[in-house]
């Protein structure tokens, strides 16, 4: 009998996937031989909605790109629009509060991920226990901002709510509670024989592959690439801190890039975030929390200003970029582009999933902490036939030639919006 392979589709909607995306596996028995990822089924056109709103409105839209890492989207958009509008003197206290919020969210995201990873392995007791741990940080986020999710804290030129001195003891209490539970959390995952069996040498991303696919965040740090926006290009309060990227070797585990190594990185980062929050609380300078108290004046300043800028943050999942362009006289955001961390990391899926068993697909896919809602920014649809498709290199070449010709015809005329 001749050897044959078969194709196994998973998705776009599947119980193993938390969000819609499409996998096609070419299988040889139990082993994955080839992977094709076809995203694009969760496209909501958020950037287009944002381009019909003013920067203050987009703040709250950006927050809703993702349900888990909502604040980093807002952070990146705030930084980009501040740079574009030339708002440079953001009070230091506001910078520290921004840092505290971003780190609280990192704890919540990593603990949530740990629970999801346990769930993907069928260890639901651990899932419920980690999510119980997560409640504490959620309560603190609610205590500071008023909401458990979608905190509405950031603002061009500062933050909207202060962390007053009487709130600090409650946050410190949370930090010490997590420090008490930290070893238990680490043991429950890293010392568990079942967890080890399912994750060690599963979904390996070698250092070479991590660099080639330009993976970001814990995915790349698990492979030993010391890449972290907070260290490489510090923003907010991170510039005052002496940070080092968390690598698995700090816990005495080799930088193998398997799922276990990524878990080690995330658990180390929970500890790192606790240290950052404590530092920021202790060293928070007094002063105003906003560059301009009058919301209307901020709106007018953004309307008059023009420019383009990039805002970068280190989301729990890795580097995140927002590009914003403001045109003078135009109240709305002229252009807005979001590049979320999962966009880089799903390319690493192709390397990680090859050679894995079909039963490991769920945990390997989950190991990059995929967020399809963040990532799906574009769907290519043919306007005439209504068919969805994929843009190839030839298509881009054709479009580029067409644009050159169009510009040549328009020579002498103002180029308009650039579309």
């Amino acid at each position, binding site marked *: 009998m001749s050897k044959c392979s078969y194709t196994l589709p998973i998705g776009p909607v599947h119980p193993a996937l938390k969000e819609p995306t499409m996998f096609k596996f070419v299988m040889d028995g139990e082993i994955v031989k080839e992977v094709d990822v076809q995203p694009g089924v969760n496209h909501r056109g958020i950037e287009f909605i944002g381009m019909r*709103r*003013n920067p*203050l*409105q*987009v*703040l*709250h*839209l950006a927050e*809703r790109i993702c349900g888990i890492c909502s604040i980093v989207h807002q952070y990146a958009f705030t930084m980009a629009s501040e*740079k*574009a*509008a*030339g*708002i*440079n*003197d*953001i*009070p230091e206290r506001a910078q520290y509060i921004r840092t505290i919020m971003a780190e609280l969210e990192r704890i919540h995201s990593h603990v949530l991920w740990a629970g999801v990873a346990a769930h993907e392995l069928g260890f639901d*007791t*651990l899932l419920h*226990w980690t999510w*119980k741990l997560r*409640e504490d940080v959620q309560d603190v986020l*609610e*205590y*500071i*901002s*008023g*909401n458990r999710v*979608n905190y*509405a804290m950031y603002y061009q030129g500062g933050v*909207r*709510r202060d962390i007053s001195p009487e709130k600090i003891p409650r946050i410190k209490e949370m930090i010490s509670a997590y420090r008490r539970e930290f070893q*238990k959390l680490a*043991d*429950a995952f890293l*010392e*568990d*024989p*079942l967890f080890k069996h399912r994750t060690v040498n599963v979904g390996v991303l070698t250092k070479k592959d991590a660099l080639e696919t330009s993976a970001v965040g814990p995915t790349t740090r698990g492979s030993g690439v010391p890449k972290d926006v907070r260290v490489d290009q510090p923003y907010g309060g991170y510039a005052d801190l002496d940070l080092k990227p968390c690598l698995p070797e700090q816990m005495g585990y080799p930088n193998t890039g398997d799922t276990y190594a990524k878990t080690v990185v995330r658990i180390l980062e929970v500890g790192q975030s606790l240290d950052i929050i404590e530092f920021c609380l202790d060293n928070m300078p007094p*002063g*105003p929390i*906003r*560059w*301009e*108290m*009058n*919301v*209307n*004046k901020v*709106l007018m*300043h953004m309307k*008059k*200003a*023009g*420019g*383009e*800028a*990039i805002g970068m943050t280190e989301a729990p999942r890795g580097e995140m970029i927002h590009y914003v362009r403001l045109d003078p006289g135009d109240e709305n955001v002229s252009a807005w582009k979001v590049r979320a961390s999962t966009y880089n990391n799903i390319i690493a899926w192709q390397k990680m999933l090859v050679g894995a068993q079909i039963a490991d697909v769920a945990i390997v896919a989950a190991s990059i902490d995929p967020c399809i809602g963040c990532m799906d920014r574009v769907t290519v649809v043919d306007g005439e036939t209504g068919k969805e498709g994929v843009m190839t290199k030839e298509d881009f070449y054709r479009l580029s030639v067409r644009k050159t010709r169009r510009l040549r015809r328009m020579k002498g005329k103002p180029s308009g919006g650039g579309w």
Partner: protein
Amino acid sequence: MASPMWFEIFRQLFDRPFTNPFPVKYAPKNMHAVAKAIEEGKVRINPPVPVPDNFRGKIEYDREACIGCRMCIKVCPANAIEFVPPPDGGPKGGKVKFYMSRCTFCELCTEICPKHCIRMSTEFLMADTNKYSDNLVITDSGRFAEQPPPQAPPKPASPPDAGQQPASGE
């Protein structure tokens, strides 16, 4: 296999449940019957967890104080606010209407309102089968008992520099 979780799992058996059952202690078979019984005073409500300080709940609107400047409409990210033109068609005296089913609870309208006639209450029970029910469309919440004191805005860190050249990216 010996999991480090075993001790934790057994400890959980003796812990008090963390969840606060609301509105009654046990999951009722018929929610409508329970709601009716609560109205009649036969069943006592188990109080909800108190809301935090900065909680942003249902909007309250002082229609009389509103001057119809439309600033809130301008900043609302969800377009949840509708302008109601004055009955006589004149240039002044317009009011607004809030659709809570679209509200994202960001508090921007409250912040930008020059007359402080919008505020966010602590009410959170807003589930409804009709998006446009009277409970969810706010036209007037009556006069606010005490006007919030006009906040003296703290001095900005430095005044906005109008002539400043905007930065052009990284």
